């Protein structure tokens, strides 16, 4: 018998962890009339951002997932926003690289750590009253103190694992099969408060979450338990450095109200609000540093 067979098709794998990539630029402004255009590139472990600053003001950004190599991630992030607003690389006067891949941004004029850049970015986004910054990044977490200019005065980073970070939240999202943007709101859709999972280690929390599901927890309760654990972990980091008024959260997790509101409750302080995407703080700070450096360079050239 001559029958035609078709290979079984694998079920479509849905990527629940995949967060929204964003491109935006300010259509009310014309970068072509600007004196100085600078760019900050933040190549993080999970996401990469390119931010354009025009005469010291935020003009546009592109936020996307980091690829498998830093130079390509930096190039792609910048290309994404330049294509949108019709800019070419030679139109940019100064580029600052930051994040884990900062030394691998091939077209950067300078590399500055993400700690300094997040503080500077938060200062722009939240104003000069920002004093304590919590950067909840893809694979680490930083508590930063800064002065009224956004200069770092002290900082602490988490330990050597991805516990309590964006990557951990991505894992839970996939495990629960719930889109990552829904985790925060759903963590409040529960009958009563739940205890934190005892571990925020990505691996152990996954096992514990499965155990809770088997024990009859709803998905929302499991998510709430994980958000609570994450909040408790970062609060312990913040308390080691001390929290001052003017509290600001940057990084992808700042978009998750399930974690943010729990942090605020534990600290008894409300985080400052911003209309700017919290995930671009590092690249924004880098672009602003670029603006200062380019301005000084131009002033020195004019004086010579």
């Amino acid at each position, binding site marked *: 018998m001559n029958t035609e067979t078709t290979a079984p098709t694998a079920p479509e794998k849905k990527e629940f962890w995949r967060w929204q990539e964003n491109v935006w630029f300010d259509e009310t402004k014309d970068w072509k009339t600007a004196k100085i255009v600078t760019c900050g590139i933040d190549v993080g472990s999970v996401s990469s951002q390119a931010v354009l600053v025009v005469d010291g003001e935020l003009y546009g950004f592109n936020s996307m997932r980091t690829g498998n190599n830093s130079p390509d991630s930096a190039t792609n992030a910048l290309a994404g926003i330049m294509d949108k607003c019709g800019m070419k690389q030679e139109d940019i006067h100064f580029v600052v690289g930051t994040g884990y891949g900062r030394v691998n941004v091939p077209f950067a004029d300078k590399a*500055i750590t*993400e700690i300094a850049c997040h503080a*500077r970015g938060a200062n722009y986004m939240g104003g000069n009253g920002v004093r304590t910054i919590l950067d909840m990044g893809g694979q680490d977490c930083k508590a930063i103190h800064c002065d009224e200019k956004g*200069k770092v005065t002290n*900082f602490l980073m988490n330990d050597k694992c991805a516990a309590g970070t964006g990557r951990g939240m991505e894992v839970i999202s996939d495990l629960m099969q719930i889109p990552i943007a829904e985790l925060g709101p759903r963590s409040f859709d529960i009958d009563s408060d739940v205890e934190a999972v005892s571990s925020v280690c990505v691996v152990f929390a996954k096992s514990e979450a499965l155990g809770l599901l088997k024990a009859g927890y709803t998905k929302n309760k499991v998510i709430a338990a994980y958000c609570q654990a994450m909040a408790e972990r970062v609060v312990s980091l913040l308390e080691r450095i001390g929290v001052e008024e003017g509290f600001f959260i940057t990084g992808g997790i700042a978009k998750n109200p399930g974690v943010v509101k729990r942090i605020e409750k534990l600290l008894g302080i409300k985080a400052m609000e911003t209309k700017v995407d919290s995930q671009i703080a590092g690249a924004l700070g880098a672009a602003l540093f670029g603006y*200062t450096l380019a301005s000084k360079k131009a002033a020195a050239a004019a004086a010579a």
Partner: protein
Amino acid sequence: MADGLFDQFQNWYEKRHDYARDWKARTGGQVVATMCTYTAEELLIAAGMLPVRVLGAHEPQNVTEPHIFGMFCPFCRDSLAQGLLERFDYAEGVTLTQSCIQYRQTFSSWRSNVPTVQWDYFVPMPNEVQSPHARKAHYAEIQAFRVFLQALTGKELTDEMLREALAVVDENRRLLRELFEYRKEANPKVTGCEALYASITAQFVDKREHNEMLKKVLAALPTRQLNRPEGVRFMTIGSENDDLAFMAMVESVGSTIVIDDQCSGTRYFWNQSKPEDDVIKAIADRYCDRPACPTKDYPVHTRYDHVLGLAKEFNARAAIFLQQKFCDPHEGDYPDLKKHLEDNGIPTLFLEFDITNPIGPFRIRIEAFLETMSDEELF
């Protein structure tokens, strides 16, 4: 550096087990694994032995768990691993002079479970060296160690032999200090990595050979030009540190390590013995007088002013605490020592060390710390 001035020290460090085996083959002497820099090496040297300090290998290991708690410090665990993995199979003896209780467990497990150990000796040095009874007690313990070694070797350790050994060790201390003096200068002629290679190798190379090498280096230093930017001048503080990859990273991002308070560095050699008619007293007192490890620094905390003094003397702009995870004595000192330094204008950074260290994340911390001190006008 390109001039290769410190290559011999680096080579000794990287091939330290080969060195010890070779020393044994050419001298016929015994090698003794020593634990803790409070060990009176003078007695071992006088007995014709080579003291070789046990260091870790900074590699993941899975052999210590049955013998020592996981919450004992990485140096304890790594040191024990080296014994259990028979990396010191050339050492007949092992000796510990009392310092911390965690390292005591390393010693106990080592002497019970490392099959190549033929003899062991524990010197119960007083921890409260400030007590009026400490010197007398330590004198007696050093004398007992001498008696033990005489019985072991079947040979008398005469005062003359001890004086000769003490002179060699004191010369090594003097030469190392002379080398470290060059680090006081602006744009030092010696990097932190090079200084560490020199001081750590003194802990396992024959002192006579080490002294000759130090003399050669010291003769060449006056005309040496490193042609590297000095950057921020750092001090390092902690227990043992021979993580050269970490040191090299720190010095590659805009800084120079100009001084330390660590037992792999200054605490090992900073003071010489004082002249005494009684050589045992000269040896014993020297260890009571040396810059204190936190285990031996009470009730008065002499370390705080000593560390601050070093920072000022060597013009360190800032200090990095290299805290071995779970090292209780150093962690206990940390809050007050940090405050003491910061109150006196020396900012600090805390890094927690493990058997292996994450160089990438540490680099971010070091660079961010440097940025907080940068004069560059980013604002």
